[in-house]
């Protein structure tokens, strides 16, 4: 359910992602060997503060930061080379080629999942997504199939970094503002009770999608009581419910969900 919040809040940012990823000209960007080399450099030079997967520690969460303040490759290069004056980020003495390898790795880490190598078995992940153990498709749809109450995942791999998708699955209630995707129980003045997700809620009107996917347009004149869930409506136990392999495969499946290839129309391939 976490994805709801991302999609809702991050759509304009998704556009910036596209510009960012597409705008780079340096040959190391997207080069698997450079990314692998950058990964090693990251583990030794950066992971201590930014976390092994970029999720932060003493230093900021690089993946999440990229959503609200995306940097282009040159900016990242400059931050690594010169550090951030006034912050704990020190300058580095890495030569240009190694610095670009680090940039290539970070670019891969914070770009859309589908543009990077994704570990795991997507076919096995597909079974998990549509199966009853995880129950993802009870709330989420892909290409028009599945549940409608949760956010659509048809393009989740084309719009979100893998690390962020993982965080959304494992810790759906972390660091989120739910306005726009609150789980609500609405008691109307005529006694009707409605449960669902509020796509919008203000003091005068509310628009709620119920579990069946039906949209309800509500005037607050008609609402007697409103119960709001503190946290994501998505279960928070996927880290335990799924084995490490199952989780990896599910993420592989989600990471491959793309509505269309990056900037390519079918004819362009010919």
């Amino acid at each position: 359910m976490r994805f709801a919040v991302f999609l809702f809040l991050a759509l304009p940012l998704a556009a910036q992602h596209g510009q960012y990823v597409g705008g780079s000209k340096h040959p190391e960007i997207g080069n698997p060997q450079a990314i692998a080399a950058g990964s090693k450099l990251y583990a030794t030079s950066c992971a201590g503060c930014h976390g092994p997967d970029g999720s932060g520690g003493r230093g900021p969460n690089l993946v999440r930061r990229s959503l609200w303040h995306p940097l282009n490759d040159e900016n990242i290069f400059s931050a690594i080379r010169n550090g951030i004056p006034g912050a704990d980020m020190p300058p580095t003495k890495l030569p240009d080629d190694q610095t670009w390898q680090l940039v290539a790795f970070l670019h891969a880490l914070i770009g859309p999942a589908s543009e990077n190598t994704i570990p795991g078995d997507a076919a096995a992940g597909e079974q998990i997504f549509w199966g009853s153990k995880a129950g993802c498709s009870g709330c989420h749809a892909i290409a028009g199939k599945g549940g409608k109450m949760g956010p659509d995942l048809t393009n989740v791999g084309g719009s979100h970094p893998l690390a962020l998708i993982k965080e959304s699955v494992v810790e759906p209630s972390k660091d989120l503002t739910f306005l726009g995707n609150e789980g609500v129980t609405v008691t109307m003045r005529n006694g009707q009770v409605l449960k669902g997700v509020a796509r919008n809620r203000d003091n005068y009107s509310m628009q709620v999608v119920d579990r069946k996917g039906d949209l309800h347009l509500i005037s607050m004149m008609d609402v007697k009581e409103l119960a709001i869930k503190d946290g994501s409506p998505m279960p928070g136990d996927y880290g335990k419910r799924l084995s490490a392999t199952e989780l990896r495969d599910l993420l592989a499946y989600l990471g491959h969900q793309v509505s269309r290839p990056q900037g390519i129309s079918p004819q362009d391939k010919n």
Partner: protein
Amino acid sequence: MRTLLLTSLFCVCAAAQVRYEDIMKGPTENWLTYAGNYQGWRYSPLKNITVDNAGSLAPKWVYHVPNAKGLRTSPLVYKGVMYVTNSNSMYALDAVSGRLIWQYLDTRAKGQGVNRGSAILGDRVYFTSNDNYLTALDRQTGALIFSKNFADASKGISSTSAPLVVKDKVIVGSAGGDSGMRGFVAALSPTTGEEIWRTYTVPAKGEKGADSWGDLVEWGGGATWLSGTFDAETNTLYWTTGNPWPDFTGKARSGDNLYTCSLVALDLETGKWKWHFQFTPHDTHDWDAQSWPVLIDMEFRGKMRKVVLHANRNGFFYVLDRNTGEFLRATKLIDKVTWASGIDDKGVPVLIPGMDPSPDGKWVCPSVKGATNWMGQSYNPGTGLLYILTLEQCGMFNSSSQEPVPMKNFSGGGATEDGGQVILRAIDPKTAKRAWEYPMTGGGRMWTGTVSTASGVLFSGDDDGHLLALDAKTGKHLWHFNMGESLTASPITYEVGGKQYVAIASATAIFSFGLFEPMQSVPLPKITITK
């Protein structure tokens, strides 16, 4: 009253599916297709807002569309939800409060061209991206169902018009005729986006009509910029076609340049050509056939005829038999037309020599914008009048001696215009006489359409950025509102909970208006936070 309202406001049911038959009925409380109905009338049976009370119209809400500039979208409304588009994006709004329900943005689309609107069928809404992907979304949640490419953007084709849903087909057109491309109309599957048929508006080399061109025929243009109309009785689509390329020099394309600047009639099931009528053979002034064909039955020379009306950019207003394409009549749409002295009895322009663009420039009326353009005209069966925004304007047309190269943004010259006046005109299609006209102040920009109602109110925008309400019978001013921006879109009207609204896009926002009523105090509900 609130309880009654509750029933209608409470649920937009998934079980309620938009059927072809619903669109066929034309506007009700809903507005389900770009031109209101398949006949292209932009006419609503709603009567809540009248000539007598229109003076108390007031704004109800505004929605600022992210990153919008020069919005051209015409909203759809179904069961209290409004669907509007911008470039590569769609937004679903609560039509009573204006609050955003969902948004969809295709971040991978190429180009940021304008978008004129959407289509609806079943539980889906459809729009096209600038780079020609038909996109189907769940109308209640905005979830993506498919996004399917139907034309190659790398060949100069883009997409700006609202798709037209008819029965089991989504009909799309093609934009981009001013830089060299080959126009078409295509029918796609609403289930998968797969192509069912495609009919080109310009022949391929060797095909019938290709001898009306030079070597560049396959880049000849004939874009289908706007949505078309449909006659259910004969299963016929009517579509207008754009100008030939290069726009302002005809030396590389001697001949009539079929089937540009034309009206074409196509069979819905197969796309097969039924007939065509060319308004401007060998156009050199960028006078596309733009505004959609309006279908009515009317008396003509003592006999009832099924006709198609078309107000053309070239300065003339045409009436054709819609079953055969027979030319019936053409009359001046604006006062000053200097390139042709009239239209002969076969429908061919009687040319005034020497009015082609030249290297030094040629002053011609109408200007390159045309006597009217793509903005929505409307027909009101109650008044029997057709409402058209017209532009009395002349302009300079220059030709270039450069060799035409497709896809290089070369239009064969250029055109400028100066001054001019926008005049909203009510025309009796039976006689072609003007019933009334409403002249406007402003800069001669002219881009707002019209909508009219059974209660005799006509809504349009003026050339200064006001939304207007006029008496549809007389043209008398009833109400205006300064939108604060240029208007480049057409208004619609809809009803929710027994109240009528009028909505229009300004350059950057969607506005909705209704009759003034004092606000009731809204009590805060009891709110609890649960685990």
